[in-house]
């Protein structure tokens, strides 16, 4: 056994952007590779489940797991890595809060499967065949992972030590986290490895944010010519900054686009969407229900807007039905 710390990367329901973020460390990745032994990284290296199963428990120093947990296979991997690792870092918005995949929590599993395998445009499946968890072929039993009814964040399945927020986490935060882990100077369990205040604090447009937003209408980015200097909320755009944790250095507002909330809330907020409603929607102009509703119509998809990356972590967790 080598004396270097053993590091594992794994992906669950994710897009690969978090793997990309690791590669985005650029030259810094050489320092990481020098300091550690990578024992699992499905996107880049050829290790198998059996390799991990064969290891003694707790023999992996750190496992970075990204992606939401949506299938039985992802659950099994998460539990396996938990058993084999001393520290698990929940990596990225999907692992932390369900991410984009968690938007599926607005639908029943049956409806999703029916659409994908029967009703969707371009589907040609007259026999209505669907993947089965277990099936027979030429006398052999074949198995496939099962799709769960609920899309979960990683910490809804296993115990997690730390969180790296973002879609994806920025190279700067990743490097800081790796250095903290390698130095052994660990923050308390449960810490989100990013500054614990609202994004507005580090936004270059902060000074132009009025005390009273006095919003008379909501607009979407394609509907207006966005002023590159002025607070995006003050321009009527739904910018999630006030309810979102800092750490990305406000890259989206710097690129003239509103924050969509991928870092999740700060530690004092339980529910990002509800808190956003609380802070921003109290500041719209009208006082009568009817006129208020007309302003609210400017946000056609409240769940997809306020919980774009976090429906698993909404206090209600998913749509009831």
């Amino acid at each position, binding site marked *: 056994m080598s004396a270097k710390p053993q590091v594992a990367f794994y992906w669950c329901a994710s897009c690969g952007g978090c793997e990309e973020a690791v590669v985005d460390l650029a030259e810094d990745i050489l320092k990481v590779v020098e300091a550690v032994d990578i024992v699992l990284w499905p996107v880049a290296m050829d290790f198998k489940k059996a390799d991990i199963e064969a290891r003694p*428990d707790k023999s992996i120093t750190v496992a970075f797991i990204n992606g939401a947990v949506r299938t039985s296979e992802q659950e*099994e991997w998460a539990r396996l890595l938990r058993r084999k690792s001393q520290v698990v870092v929940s990596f990225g918005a999907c692992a932390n809060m369900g991410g984009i995949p968690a938007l599926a929590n607005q639908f029943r599993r049956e409806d999703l499967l029916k659409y994908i395998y029967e009703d969707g445009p371009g589907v040609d499946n007259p026999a209505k065949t669907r993947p089965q968890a277990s099936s027979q072929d030429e006398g052999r039993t074949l198995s496939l992972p099962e799709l769960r009814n609920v899309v979960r964040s990683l910490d809804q399945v296993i115990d997690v030590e730390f969180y790296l927020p973002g879609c994806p986490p920025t190279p700067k935060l990743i490097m800081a986290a790796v250095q903290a882990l390698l130095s052994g100077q660990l923050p308390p369990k449960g810490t989100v490895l990013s500054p614990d205040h609202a994004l507005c604090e580090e936004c270059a447009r902060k000074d132009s944010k009025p005390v009273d937003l006095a919003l008379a209408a909501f607009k979407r980015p394609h509907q207006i010519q966005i002023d590159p200097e002025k607070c995006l909320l003050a321009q009527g755009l739904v910018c999630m900054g006030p309810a979102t944790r800092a750490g990305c250095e406000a890259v989206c507002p710097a690129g003239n686009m509103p924050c969509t909330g991928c870092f999740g809330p700060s530690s004092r907020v339980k529910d990002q969407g509800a808190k956003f409603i609380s802070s921003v929607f109290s*500041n719209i102009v009208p006082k009568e229900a009817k006129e208020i509703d007309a302003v609210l119509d400017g946000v056609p998809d409240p769940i997809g807007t306020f919980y774009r990356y976090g429906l698993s972590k909404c206090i209600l967790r998913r749509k009831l039905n």
Partner: protein
Amino acid sequence: MSEQPSMAPVVAAPAVAFEPRIVAFFCNWCTYTAADLAGVSRLKYAPNVRVIRVMCSGRVDPQFVLEAFAKGADGVLLGGCHPGDCHYAEGNYKTLRRMRMLIRMLKELGIEDGRFRLEWISGAEGDKVKAVVNEMTAQVRALGPLDLPGKFKEWDREMEDLEQHVNASAPQQEEAHVR
């Protein structure tokens, strides 16, 4: 205490008679005072509300409403001063705006209409407290239990078998620490 036999034959109550649990956030200046008035006036209303006094309806964060549902409330009632009467001038307007959006959100997440209600009740309207509480209790009773804590448990049951399977194949304890 009293050993007097009951005159009526003992009828076994149905095992699980549903009694709605409604969390009510009442503002200190109007609706809570109205609830007090209802009490002093000996108005009887359904005992299904658990009143929480807040300084202003504007203090009620939408998170509180979600949390109440998640902890087992079947309904949430929010009471504040009439428009124009807020002790803090604007608090109830802020509440109205937030809650109009919260209502949309609850609807999209499958929480039925009658489970959340916002009412303006002034300190003089003890009878309105009675009417609103009775009406809402009846409405929530008709909707049936929400039982989110039960639903959360039920949802997570799909993970049980696999968890046992993975743990069963685990070595007894943390037997090997390799550094």
